[in-house]
């Protein structure tokens, strides 16, 4: 996919297929991961993210397909013959070994001398911000600290690939936020190719260089966080990432679609006139009166506020839009806009839809 002279991929996955008995967990997965990038596998529970990660790790064997790491076919290699470090949701720290021994676990086996190992362990503990915890046992550390140690242990042998399976989901919200940033920084600094599995879209969007959105054992879309959010390739992706309005519409040609008695202009030309479609619009894909006279803009609408959800720094208003035949729309207002534009139940609000943002999918 890289053209004539392909960039050496850190990892290539070719037509991976996995079934458990008659249940198909993964179907024809193709994926190339570039050196040094952080890729997130994102998808709902049970979509096969973990299975794919475990196949890459050699902990699960694929039913068909190949795994190629740094140009070497490791499809059938046992885990120990592959080159990666892994961190699990459960930390999996050895409870009876000290933090130091945990981090040194993979080093000791390589018959390095004691001083070199100690130096390396100290370096790693410093790297994850816990330089003085070496003599303690895992049970004496907090969840976030344990996860940092698990990360240090995985990085100790300087693997070329780091695999993280929901590393943050056992932590509380604050700790999760903090560690999110730390992992990202560390990964950038070490330039280690990283795959992280998560079902938390915020996590994926904030950390990843590229996001692989999965559903029902298949890849729905691969792209940068902005791409998958702004230009979802499938209704599933649009629905799964963030909030979205889905409007029933009919194609009237020229990238225009009729919703109820109104016509909406979009940048999407793919449909034939008369096709029944769905328009996907995020609550923030609108222009409000505070940035100009919206009545004269294309796709100008007006509606009555039926409900306002206050969500901290912003509000989501449910609008009964004129001419939409009762299809309600969620529209995003910042707190200031809410106040300035007088958004409250029963109020009338004018807004315009951004034509370039409207995604159109067949109904």
């Amino acid at each position, binding site marked *: 996919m890289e053209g004539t002279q392909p960039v050496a991929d850190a990892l290539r996955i070719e037509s991976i297929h996995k079934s458990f008995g008659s249940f198909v967990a993964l179907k024809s997965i193709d994926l190339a991961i570039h050196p040094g990038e952080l890729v997130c596998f994102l998808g709902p529970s049970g979509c096969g993210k973990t299975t794919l990660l475990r196949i890459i*790790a*050699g*902990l699960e064997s694929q039913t068909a397909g190949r795994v190629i790491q740094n140009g070497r076919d490791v499809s059938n290699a*046992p*885990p*120990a*013959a*592959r*080159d*990666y*470090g*892994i961190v*699990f949701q*459960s*930390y*999996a*720290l*050895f*409870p*009876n*070994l000290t933090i130091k021994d945990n981090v040194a*676990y*993979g*080093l000791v*086996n*390589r018959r*390095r001398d004691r001083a*070199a190992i100690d*130096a*390396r362990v100290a*370096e790693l503990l410093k790297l994850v911000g816990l330089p003085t915890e070496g003599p303690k*046992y*895992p*049970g*004496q550390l907090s969840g976030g600290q*344990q996860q940092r140690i698990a990360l240090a*242990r*995985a*990085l*100790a*042998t*300087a*693997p070329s690939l780091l*695999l993280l399976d929901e590393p943050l989901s056992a932590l509380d919200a604050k700790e999760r936020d903090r560690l999110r940033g730390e992992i990202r920084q560390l990964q950038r600094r*070490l*330039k*280690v190719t990283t795959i992280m599995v998560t079902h938390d879209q915020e996590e994926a969007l904030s950390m990843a260089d590229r996001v692989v959105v999965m559903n029902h054992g298949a890849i729905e879309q691969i792209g940068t966080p902005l791409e998958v959010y702004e230009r979802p390739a499938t209704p599933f992706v649009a629905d799964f990432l963030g909030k979205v309005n889905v409007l029933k519409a009919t194609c009237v040609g020229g990238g225009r679609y009729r919703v109820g008695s109104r016509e909406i202009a979009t940048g999407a030309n793919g449909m034939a006139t008369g096709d029944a479609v769905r328009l996907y619009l995020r609550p923030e894909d609108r222009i409000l009166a505070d940035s100009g006279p919206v009545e004269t803009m294309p796709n100008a609408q007006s509606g009555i506020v039926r409900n306002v959800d206050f969500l901290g720094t912003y509000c989501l208003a449910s609008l009964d839009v004129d001419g939409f035949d009762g299809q309600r729309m969620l529209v995003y207002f910042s707190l200031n806009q809410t106040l300035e534009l007088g958004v409250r139940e029963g109020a009338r609000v004018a807004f315009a839809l951004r034509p370039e943002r409207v995604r159109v999918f067949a109904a």
Partner: protein
Amino acid sequence: MSGTLAAGPAPVASRRLALAGEALAARGGLVLVAVALFVFLTAPLAALLIRAIQDKGGAYVGLANFVQYFASPAFSRSAGNTLTFALVTTFLTVPLAFAFAYAIQRSCIRAKWLWRNIALVPILAPSLLAALSFIYLFGNQGVLKGVLPWFGLTTIYGLPGMVLSMTFSAFPHAVMILLASLSLSDARLYEAADSLATSEWRKFVTITLPGARYGIISAAMVVFTMAVSEFGVPKVIGANYSVLAIDIYKQVIGQQNFQIGAVVGLILLVPALVAFFVDHAVRVRQKALLSARSVPYVPKPAPVRDRLLLAFVLLMSAAMLAVIGMAVFGSFVKVWPYNLSFTLNHYTYGFEEAGVENAYRNSLTMAAWCALIGALLTFAGAYWLEKTRGADFVRPIVRLQAMLPMAIPGLVLGIGYILFFNHPANPLNVVYGTMGILVLSTIVHFYSSSHLTAVTALKQLDNEFESVSASLKVPFYKTFSRVTVPVCLPSIIDISRYYFVNAMTTISAVVFLYSPKTMLAAISIVQLDEAGAIGSAAAMATLIVATSGVVTLLSFAVEGWLLRRTQGWRRAAPTR
């Protein structure tokens, strides 16, 4: 990344070789476990099955042996007796055990740990000990013989003595199951009932009993199976009350009639298998009850109830200690009940006279081997089963075989062993008549519970330890010795103790397999009793209880020391 040492891969060729070796060790170990279980469990049972459809000469005769045995008057009498014995024992033991467990889990009586431990004491004794004690108390020379008519009995020999002795032996097993079952309770159900002003009795009937029903069924099944396959108790106190277990013994040892012995063995297998599957089904359901998140019930003081239950618990504990105490006392007096002066003769001349002076030492040897090898094999087997990868088709076979011994009465296993290992064409027949076969049969006989203990301990460990090790290129056996074993050591000690105590007290399988040189203490009790040396029989029983008791206390001490030494990491250790 820049490190003080770049972790370059080890030389490829040697690395690959090491990996191949590791995979072989992982898979080979599992296959080895499967083969061992097959040779020492499944094959002997198959031999039993085959023998049941052969005549004396080994020719196929279909169901002729069954027809012959079913037609004999001995069968209908023994089958009926066995059923009566097992049912009466079950109906006596389970309610008593339930009340006892209820007092511990659901009342506010004091010193619960003490009652709990006293209830478990019979596990340390061979079932024969109770039979001897009841003979001392109510037998022909019994001091309390006079009370028998109060209960409408003329003699303790036969069914009454068998039921009492069996109840003593089975009681701790039922109590353990019911304690576990009654510990699962949802306080919210009781609170809801209280808010509706429900009477205590109604709460008991509508909440407590239904909540414990699986435990009750499970306990009943365990007691029933124990009674059906019990050999020692009917032998010592059963008099003419014939049961299937005795029939087997007579057929096989008395008349060398292996084919009828095999037939009786298969008949014994039926109730045991039924009980096994009922119990299994029930346990699965109990687990489903357990998984619901519930608030544990904490009993509130209720003076009348607590006093009544305390009286009951005291009475039961006193009775159990009296049974043990009676045998111990009897072993130290010259002639019960006429000359109560102290003597050690039963322990010295008594053993010599009956030619069983080596029995105790043999039992110690065997129990030590069982504790050592048994714990090792069982734990390693469970580890291979649960934590290694590859050779997945073998796993269900191992799992099934590991649970099978629970459904196999010891007598049945014993006959299977004779038939399989005493077969002239079997190259393994060198073990026949040795200590080795006693150790092996005992390990197999008590494999299931030990296996379950090991599996439970292993399941508490994070499943990803092995994955992490593999990713760090540390071979699985290193993680096994550095992490798995140290973390599971308390459970391994439990398994060891379980094997030791059972090896000391068991009779049923080994009674077919011992030779004069390998006579065991528990078996010698039967022999001493038959020779009329009841004092020496009691002495041997006392030695067994004392040894099991000391070893149990020792193992607790070791575990306590271990826990204290490792509490640095055990206290808040994350397990999952």
